[in-house]
């Protein structure tokens, strides 16, 4: 059992904290809370777009000139120094190109996760540490708990509805040791964070939430991928291989997808059809009934542990398979670097490329990238 000796921003001594400020309300309030707790905070906005001006009309994400100005304004109100760091090249290599390559390979990546792993808690953290900072602070809703033995654990946010521990599940012990999430242990709704921003005089209080993918300014992921990968007509087939229609690029599909198949005629049984499989090799998309989506087990690669790797042998955890997804009970075992996972109840819409994050209660145990799925029930 864990004893929480410190949570959130409280700390015995003031730390030198680098607050990543996207220009949104959450990261602004997080920076303000860190500063209020007595830490020496410096704000930094990450310029992630190679050509920020081209994103000026985009309302989303963290790449526009307005977002940078909003972050600067918030830092001024909080009374902390503020800088813009150009990490566009690293972001392009590690997040955008990875995103495109994953889709091209028929997988479904989560770029936010990749950004936390490779940019915010790698490129940014490394530079921060080199410059003498102790920690990187973000507006994520998650909780870092320091055990009495000094080790750090990542937990779900107190507010389950806001919890973002899933996209932080890739952080290892070292990264966690330097992470600060001031919003994690507050039982608040977004409305209350906005009220707090208003009270603090932060003009971002009324700014709309960002969602979707920050580097796809218009939200049109399909269009973005088509532009990057080109159109490549291929077959849509059923489970028996019967040709049902054509598509303009297999990368445009996600496992479990129902809409946008444009098959024209209904299935013989009249039931909706879903994407079951995407094969980039022969550019074929397989569709079928919902029941065929049931996944009973999977393998996942590149496991990353928030602390010690689990002991040998199968162990029971809860798992989350996508951002804001529900928890499900699993039995997982690590064998030769591959995580073998069996579900207690079948899961639908499980796609290779997605991250599987394992929890022990509220504690994040670790994460891995789904490599393959199995649709037949089988014991461990």
């Amino acid at each position, binding site marked *: 059992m864990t004893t929480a000796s410190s949570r959130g921003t409280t700390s015995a001594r003031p730390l030198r904290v680098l607050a990543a400020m996207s220009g949104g309300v959450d990261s602004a309030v997080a920076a303000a809370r860190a500063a209020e707790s007595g830490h020496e905070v410096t704000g930094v906005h990450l310029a992630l777009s190679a050509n920020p001006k081209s994103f000026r009309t985009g309302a989303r994400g963290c790449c526009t000139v307005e977002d940078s100005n909003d972050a600067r304004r918030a830092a001024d109100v909080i009374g902390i120094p503020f800088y813009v760091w150009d990490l566009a090249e690293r972001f392009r290599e590690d997040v955008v190109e990875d995103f495109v390559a994953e889709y091209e390979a028929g997988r479904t990546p989560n770029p936010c996760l990749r950004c936390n792993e490779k940019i915010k808690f790698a*490129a940014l953290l490394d530079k921060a540490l080199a410059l003498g900072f102790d920690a990187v602070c973000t507006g994520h809703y998650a909780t870092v708990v320091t055990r009495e033995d000094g080790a750090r654990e990542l937990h779900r946010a107190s507010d389950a509805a806001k919890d973002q521990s899933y996209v932080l599940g890739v952080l290892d012990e070292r990264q966690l040791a330097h992470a600060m999430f001031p919003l994690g242990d507050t039982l608040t709704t977004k409305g209350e964070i906005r009220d707090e921003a208003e009270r603090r005089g932060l003009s971002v209080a009324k700014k709309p939430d960002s969602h979707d993918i920050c580097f796809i300014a218009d939200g049109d992921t399909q269009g973005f991928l088509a532009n990057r990968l080109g159109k490549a007509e291929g077959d849509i087939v059923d489970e028996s291989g019967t040709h049902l229609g054509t598509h303009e690029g297999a990368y445009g599909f996600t496992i479990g997808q129902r809409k946008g198949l444009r098959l024209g005629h209904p299935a013989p049984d009249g039931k909706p059809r879903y994407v079951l499989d995407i094969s980039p090799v022969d550019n074929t998309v397989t569709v079928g009934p919902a029941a065929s989506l049931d996944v009973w087990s999977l393998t996942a690669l590149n496991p990353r542990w928030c602390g010690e790797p689990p002991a040998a042998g199968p162990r029971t955890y809860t798992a989350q398979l996508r951002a804001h997804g529900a928890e499900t009970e699993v039995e997982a075992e690590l064998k030769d670097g591959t995580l073998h996972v069996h579900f207690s109840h079948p899961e639908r819409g499980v796609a290779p490329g997605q991250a599987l994050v394992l929890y022990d209660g509220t504690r994040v145990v670790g994460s891995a990238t789904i490599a393959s799925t199995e649709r037949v029930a089988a014991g461990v």
Partner: protein
Amino acid sequence: MADTAHSVYLDHAATTPMWPEAVRTMTEQLTVVGNASSLHGAGRRARRTVEESRESLAASLGARPSEVVFTGGGTEADNLAVKGLYWARRDADEARTRVLASPVEHHAVLDAVEWLAEHEGARVEWLPVDVYGRVRPDAFREALERDPDDVALATVMWANNEIGTVTDVRELAQIAAEFGVPLHADAVQAFGQLDIGFEDSGLAALTVTGHKIGGPYGIGALLLGREYTPVPLLHGGGQERHVRSGTLDTPAVAAFATAGRLAVERRDEFVREVGPLRDALVEAVLDAVPDAVLNGDPDPAGRLPANAHFSFPGCEGDSLLLLLDAQGIECSTGSACTAGVAQPSHVLLATGTDPDLARGTLRFSLGHTSTKADIEAVAETIAPVVTRARNAGLT
């Protein structure tokens, strides 16, 4: 973070504190009503203040009062000179579309020139510069000689805002005059640090601004030879020789003139006091960081007395700034940023500096409030800051 009350301000080239006398002039005038264009008593009083200020500023700059065109600052004066003279000269003879410009200009000139190329059919010829960013007179002559009749104007700054290099614009003006081509010089950084005589210089136009010499923000002037009538950027009430319309800001004009007078009166003293401080700073930095590179002309005769500009190999300029700021030392990388992201200095790139060295730069610019203690603070801080920034590396 450091208390601003204890900050070491070494960014006077960005802006320098107003002289108390200029503040007094300005506050006095702020309580007086009157539009200098009005015919009644209040207007006459305002006009008298404006015209006396014009005479004073003209005297400070070795110009005639009628050659002083007040503007909203240095950027506007540069734009008026570059675009206005281009339009006027091209309208008089459509063959004149060539613009000769140094590549180390401030963006107020650089971007105006590039705008002319993109929108007004200008053909820009960037004049070659030496390793210190100085336009070579023989290259200038060659560019003019090739076809003097197609040149609309030339523009070369008097002293560089980043690396402090002083150019002998008088020599260039003589050459330009031989070919009947107007030469504009941005003297925003030179005013108050160098001896500027507009009439003697032979220049067609010269830009100065208030807040770099201890005057107020938002006021500048284009000194403009009487034979030139640039096409205005601003149309309206026809003030300022019909070249720059808009009600004159009497308090700012008056305070600008006060600051201009003081800048000239105290220039010798400034050079005597600030020059050695700058030299001490250069020595201290090169001592503490042996591989630091002093950019610009190492000969004090060839650079602004208050400027010191360095490259620190393997460092990001931004990292240096952040670390110094945390110690209460306020300076600049010297170069412009795009959307908040520092760009490698176009000035250093034009002088042939390695692009990585053009990224890790710091400009320390001294002013009339600088002290020995400021220099000591830099001397103590710079070595550990550079070590740390170097560890953070280039992203």
